[in-house]
């Protein structure tokens, strides 16, 4: 009965404050959940939003001793300098190609791997394969490139195999043509298992009754994969694809630096290494910030575009 009489007692002022009170009540109800998000919010504010003030540096001739607020403004001069530089364009092209190749080969690989794992019936063998596939992810990039260099050395395994087939010694790290296959291939090897975790988790969420029904309808394993497993995975696939497209230009510059040599610069000179040289080695912070900002704008457009396309064609999107 209280519920029925309450509206009659509420004044117009109280009516306006009703949603606020409801909001407060919800906050109090969810105080523990909110409390748990606070560290993450603080982290994002401190390390993602506050540093954005640094974007100003891209429009200045920044001087560390004058600081962000006292360095002279130069407008778009740093952007002009960057875009008028042929080496920068080479870096941009290489970054894009490397990102696209990584996406093209690196993105489907863990999906295929997860699907294959899903088909394994031996539980212990499956767990063993999973564990082994995760291990390379925990190897530091320095060690990983070191292993790669040993494998690709003139006396290494790769050349041993090449010699077996009568092919002459290949200078893998000196040949610009081999840089991209080595980079993408080693990336897949290192992240295949780890990246498949999300897909394996998504696979467990698919209703087993669907498979049972499909079997009754006469569907084989391939048909089950095609019509049940893949559609079940598609939301996860789409979200990760959109995020991956956004990070196409975020090449692992540390790995590139480790794999770089003068003779493969034609393909290994990427924006990340260029920014490292400009910003960290030559302390030209303004130019480095301008390049970073330009890349962020491109990445932002790519994410928006990918999300729009995903929404239009698959009806699944991030927002």
């Amino acid at each position, binding site marked *: 009965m209280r519920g029925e009489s309450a509206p009659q007692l509420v004044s117009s002022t109280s009516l306006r404050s009703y949603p606020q009170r409801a909001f407060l009540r919800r906050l109090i109800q969810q105080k523990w959940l909110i409390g748990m998000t606070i560290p993450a919010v603080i982290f994002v504010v401190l390390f993602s939003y506050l540093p954005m003030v640094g974007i100003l540096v891209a429009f200045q*001739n920044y*001087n*560390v*001793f*004058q*600081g962000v607020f006292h360095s002279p403004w130069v407008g778009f001069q740093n952007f002009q*300098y960057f875009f008028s*530089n*042929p*080496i*920068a364009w080479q870096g941009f092209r290489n970054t894009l190609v490397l990102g696209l190749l990584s996406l093209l080969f690196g993105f489907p690989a863990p999906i295929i791997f997860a699907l294959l794992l899903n088909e394994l019936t031996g539980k212990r063998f499956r767990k063993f394969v999973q564990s082994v596939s995760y291990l390379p992810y925990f190897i530091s990039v320095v060690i990983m490139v070191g292993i790669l*260099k040993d494998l690709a*050395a*003139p006396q290494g395994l790769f050349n041993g195999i090449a010699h077996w087939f009568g092919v002459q*010694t290949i*200078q893998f*790290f*000196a040949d610009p043509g081999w840089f991209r296959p080595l980079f993408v291939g080693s990336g897949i090897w290192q992240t295949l298992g780890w990246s498949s975790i999300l897909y394996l988790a998504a696979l467990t969420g698919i209703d087993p009754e669907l498979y049972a029904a499909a079997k009754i309808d006469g569907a084989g394993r391939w048909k089950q994969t095609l019509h049940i497993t893949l559609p079940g995975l598609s939301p996860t696939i789409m979200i990760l694809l959109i995020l991956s497209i956004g990070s196409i230009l975020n090449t692992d510059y540390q790995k590139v630096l480790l794999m*770089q*040599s*003068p*003779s493969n*610069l*034609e393909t290994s*000179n990427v924006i990340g290494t*260029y920014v490292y*040289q*400009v*910003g*960290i*080695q*030559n*302390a*030209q*912070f303004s*130019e480095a910030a301008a390049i970073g900002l330009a890349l962020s704008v491109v990445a932002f457009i790519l994410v928006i575009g990918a999300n729009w396309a995903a929404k239009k064609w698959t009806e699944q999107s991030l927002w």
Partner: protein
Amino acid sequence: MRSKRLLASAAISLLATSAMLSTTASASSNSKTLSFTVYQPYFTKSPLGTAAQKVWTQDMEKYLGVKLNITWDQLPFSTFLGKESTYLASGNLADVSLLTSQQDINTAGNEGAIVNLMPYLKKGDMPYYAKWLKQNDNLAKVESNGHLYYFSNGLYNGPSTQFGTQETWMVRYDIFQKYHIPIPQSLNQVYTDALRLKKLFPKSYPVGSQWAGTGGVINIDTVFAHMNHTEGDVYFNGLKYVFGPSADYGRYKATIEFLHKLYAQKLLDPNFLTISSSQFPSLADSGEFFMVPNGFGEDLNPSQGGSLNTGSFKGQWVAIPVPKNLYGQVSWHNASDGPGYQMDPRWGSVISSKANNIPLLVKLLDYQYSPQIFNLYNYGIQGKTFQLVNGKPQFLPSILKTKNHEPPIDKPLLQKLPVGAGSGIRIGIQWIPENRDAENQMFGLMPVYLHGKITWDGMWSFTSQTSDGLKSVDPNNFAPSLPLSAQQQTQIANDTTALSTYMNEQLAKFILGQESFSQWPQFVKQAESIGNVQQVVSWDNAALKTLETQNHWSYRASVGK
């Protein structure tokens, strides 16, 4: 209750007063304690707590008349080098820092972030550093538009090491001797020797490289270019600033053509672009190559942890005199120095403008150039490791070893003390000037080919005695600190990355034969365009002229041209 309050108030007042007094003590030059912070690298091991470091502190306290309270912020040298930009960007300079870029030092100085030492120099408050600055036009190397912002890295080269270097040509002497191949005395002979070795060992690449270089730089190209009196960059040739690839009458192009000739005939080890110093020993021992133009003396000295001539390896790598260049001239030796009191202007200690007791800190850093600290740093503790003979320091006989080919100095003993740049444990505030003669002795002996036979010599003494004096030294090593504007310096730094990336990529292509030498003029034109090279050269030469006019002297005369 009231008495308790009174007691508490009295205690607080006492604490506040004592805090004020102690603050005053650390801030006043008349105080008993000089407190300050130091940001610098350490090398093999931190010197803190060592006997020599204690003597350094005692000597300093005696000279300054105060107790020292130093807060050390030290990083391993390799880490330290890559952190300068981020350290400066933090905006928090220690009271005393080592900065490793002359451009950073001048920028910090122009902004007033670090102390201008010139007034102290002119007042005579820096007697010891002044002595170093007076020698060999050192002041011109380190001053900036009439300002002096740092205590630079000093080096003393005595008669035995005056033109020495750590880098040396090396050959597999056992192979050369066995097949009666002459030790190369010129680059042309390097080529003919390589051809003979290739015939004898078809799977080998007779000329190898000790390391590929850093930051995408092709090290072997630099070494050969220096030999031919040129560089692949804008540099001071003793007369003026030039861009090597478009100047020097085609010497730079000839250098790259020579390397291509070696590569095309499989005489140059293809690993030269990627080899690391850790990969070098196994390749050197395997017979992959027999001549190395950019070896390090340390590699030849097993007692110093050298990587060659060790274990089950039956051959013998030896150092040889640097062959003459393609034009029959004495080659410039890579990384060599000149005689006497030299200064490396790239880096040095600076004092923050915000530091307390600046005059006392100036006095402290100046004292590091005194004979007392110079000897302590290089020879250790007087009476324990060295003695003065006719005013000159000499290691004590008790720590010298002379039998066979063992190093003449017991390095582990010195490390315990420790002393010297050569021991890898550097006391005090970096940099204290190095004495090359002490380092040469500490290094020990390496096998060398001299006057037609194998003998043993020190690293710097061998490379010095096989040099031809100043003719062997790259004049760029004596380049002055140019009075460029901040805008010019920023522009040059901006262009550097693009130019070096383009140069390295193209040079590798020319050497590997992926680019025809008919494209050389286009390459040079493009490089000049990317690096705004002609503008940089004209700025540099205008600044050089200004410097010479201001100082009423000709810089070229001072480098023996």
